[in-house]
């Protein structure tokens, strides 16, 4: 039985669950309406206390919307974070907090992390199956945009080669993320520190970069980053530039970047940039982002470069998953809370219905005095209650989708992680579950009405 269910495609499963949740509603309606025309009276009841009815609908809508917005937003946030970490299969850094390193590398959040040595970088770069071993250097910024030093190959990889203009070919060139408010051809001087206005931040006098390319939107914090050759960051801070001084010009001739005509034509001060780096002149890097030619190689590399006191390799995706795991309890608490709030609203709606039934008591007694069968009376009351529920649920789904959208915009603006909340099946199921459950309960007030003697209702 479970095997069979597992073989049904996902979409069909979700649709089936949705239908199953709708089924009781359809069955009740069919059973109650057969041979009757309750709708004109339902309309009359809806119009009778339209103000109260509206309050009911809004109450239901808000509670359904809250549940839906929470679920949709939470899922979107997870998807957005995973998407942001997508390009970071394996990160190697100095032993310490994986979370700090994850925040620093994937999310470009300034954090205090130790450096790994040039020797280790060299080992990583030369390891089997390593396509790209990108060192990162942080610390500078330009008008709030972090300036990150790295290598050209990483840019190509990060942007899937969607770069307008070209990658940097010289130490004075920069490539900007999609959302950096600069244009190709613009020149700028970065400031030290992550925020330009920080007290200890000061412009690096005389250091100029020219923007030569812009990456396409990646939906990650890197859209706000300015990427420069890592040599430039090192040099600005008075460090070695990763290459042996004497060999500088020879390297220049033979290095792949020499193909770049523009680069060849640059000022004599231009250094060779990019790997290979000379371990002796490598000032250290907080993180090496590794991309391998084979997926399985990541695991081998991770264990190869997880060494006490020297290096720590980790999968950002796994760390995020662990984080969700920890937050899972919170999520559960949130869904329980939203269920409880929906339950409370359902209870409020039900007791409201019982009160409304008192207001309709004489009308209902009159119907029964005229000989209306019990099933007709139940049909009218249940349909009335279910119309309120249906209207509230539909409004709640729309409101919830809108609220999730707004939340997404806020989260995107604050984290630079593109979060797009869309209505998913779980939200539909939640809404339908609520509708189904409460409309079943709505049979109670109808049944309660039938238990009252007609004669008593007539004299009320």
């Amino acid at each position, binding site marked *: 039985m479970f095997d069979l269910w597992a073989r049904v495609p996902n979409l069909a499963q979700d649709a089936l669950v949705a239908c199953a949740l709708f089924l009781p509603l359809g069955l009740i309606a069919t059973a109650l309406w057969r*041979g009757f025309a309750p709708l*004109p009276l339902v309309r*009359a009841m809806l119009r009778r206390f339209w103000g109260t009815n509206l309050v009911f609908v809004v109450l239901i809508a808000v509670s359904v919307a809250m549940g839906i917005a929470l679920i949709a937003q939470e899922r979107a946030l997870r998807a957005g974070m995973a998407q942001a970490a997508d390009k970071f299969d394996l990160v190697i850094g100095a032993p310490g907090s994986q979370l700090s390193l994850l925040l620093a590398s994937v999310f470009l959040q300034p954090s205090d992390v130790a450096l790994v040595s040039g020797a280790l970088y060299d080992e990583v770069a030369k390891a089997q199956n390593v396509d790209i071993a990108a060192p990162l250097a942080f610390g500078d910024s330009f008008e709030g945009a972090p300036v990150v030093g790295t290598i050209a190959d990483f840019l190509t990889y990060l942007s899937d080669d969607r770069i307008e203009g070209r990658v940097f070919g010289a130490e004075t060139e920069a490539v900007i993320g999609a959302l950096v408010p600069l244009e190709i051809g613009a020149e700028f001087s970065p400031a030290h520190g992550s925020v330009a206005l920080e007290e200890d931040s000061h412009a690096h006098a005389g250091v100029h970069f020219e923007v030569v390319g812009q990456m396409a939107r990646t939906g990650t914090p890197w859209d706000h980053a300015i990427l420069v050759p890592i040599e430039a960051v090192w040099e600005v801070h008075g460090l070695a530039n990763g290459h042996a001084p004497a060999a500088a010009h020879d390297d220049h001739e033979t290095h792949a970047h020499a193909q770049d005509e523009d680069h060849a034509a640059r000022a004599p001060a231009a250094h060779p940039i990019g790997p290979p780096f000379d371990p002796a002149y490598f000032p250290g890097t907080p993180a090496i982002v590794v991309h391998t030619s084979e997926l399985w190689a990541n695991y081998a590399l991770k264990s190869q470069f997880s060494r006490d006191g020297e290096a720590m390799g980790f999968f950002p995706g796994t760390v995020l998953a662990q984080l969700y795991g920890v937050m899972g309890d919170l999520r559960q608490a949130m869904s329980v809370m939203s269920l409880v709030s929906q339950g409370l609203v359902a209870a409020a709606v039900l007791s409201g219905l019982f009160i409304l039934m008192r207001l309709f008591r004489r009308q209902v007694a009159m119907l029964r005095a005229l000989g209306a069968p019990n099933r007709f009376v139940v049909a009218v009351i249940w349909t009335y209650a279910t119309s309120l529920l249906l209207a509230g649920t539909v409004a709640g789904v729309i409101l919830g989708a809108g609220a999730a959208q707004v939340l997404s915009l806020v989260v995107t603006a604050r984290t630079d992680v593109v979060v797009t909340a869309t209505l998913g099946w779980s939200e539909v199921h939640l809404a339908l579950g609520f509708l189904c459950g409460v409309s079943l309960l709505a049979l109670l007030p109808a049944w309660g009405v039938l238990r009252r003697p007609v004669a008593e209702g007539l004299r009320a």
Partner: protein
Amino acid sequence: MRAAEAAALPLDLSINGLVMHDPAGRVLLDVADLSVRAGKSLGICGPSGAGKSTLLHALSGLRRATSGQILWGEHDVQAMTPSQSAAFRARYTGMIFQDFLLFDELSALDNAGLGAWFRPRGERAKPRSKAGAILRDLSVPQTARSVASFSGGERQRVGVARALASDALILLADEPTASLHRAAAEKLGDDLVALSRSGGATLITVSHDEALLARMDRVIRLENGKIVAGDAHV
């Protein structure tokens, strides 16, 4: 007795040894013998609290007697199950209330043809067209607007049309003119008696309205649940 045969028989009312108590055991109603031939009209008067409404409810099966029998032709309404009694009311009785008891949001036609909505689709047209015809006879404004804007007299005529729309053979009216001013009450009394006569319905009216009572074939007076005046047989 099969339903078809029962339907064909005239619905003469006969009450035998009807006794009704309230939950505390006080006697609300004690009617040893009362009969009304089909098509005749009976007025019931008496002081407040005499049991007039209670008797009317018992006649339509809405209230249970402690003992005794209420027969409409062959139908023993006190012996019916609630759903049988509902079906009996839908089929044979029409009720008129002091304060009309209409759905204010609905039109006159919808109110008068209300009974059609709990009949199967195929049987809905007839009571509705009958309701329309009676509304015309009673010169109720034929408009789509809701009855909320109608005068008291117009509203009660809608109530009468509702009672008569399903070809009711038994009309039970509880103070039908009490909410109306003199002229409207006169007109309604005329219409009520005329329509029940022409339809061959038995009319039982509880009222304080001397003019309305005077139009009945016979009037009984109820006090403390007992018939104290009037002829018990018509």
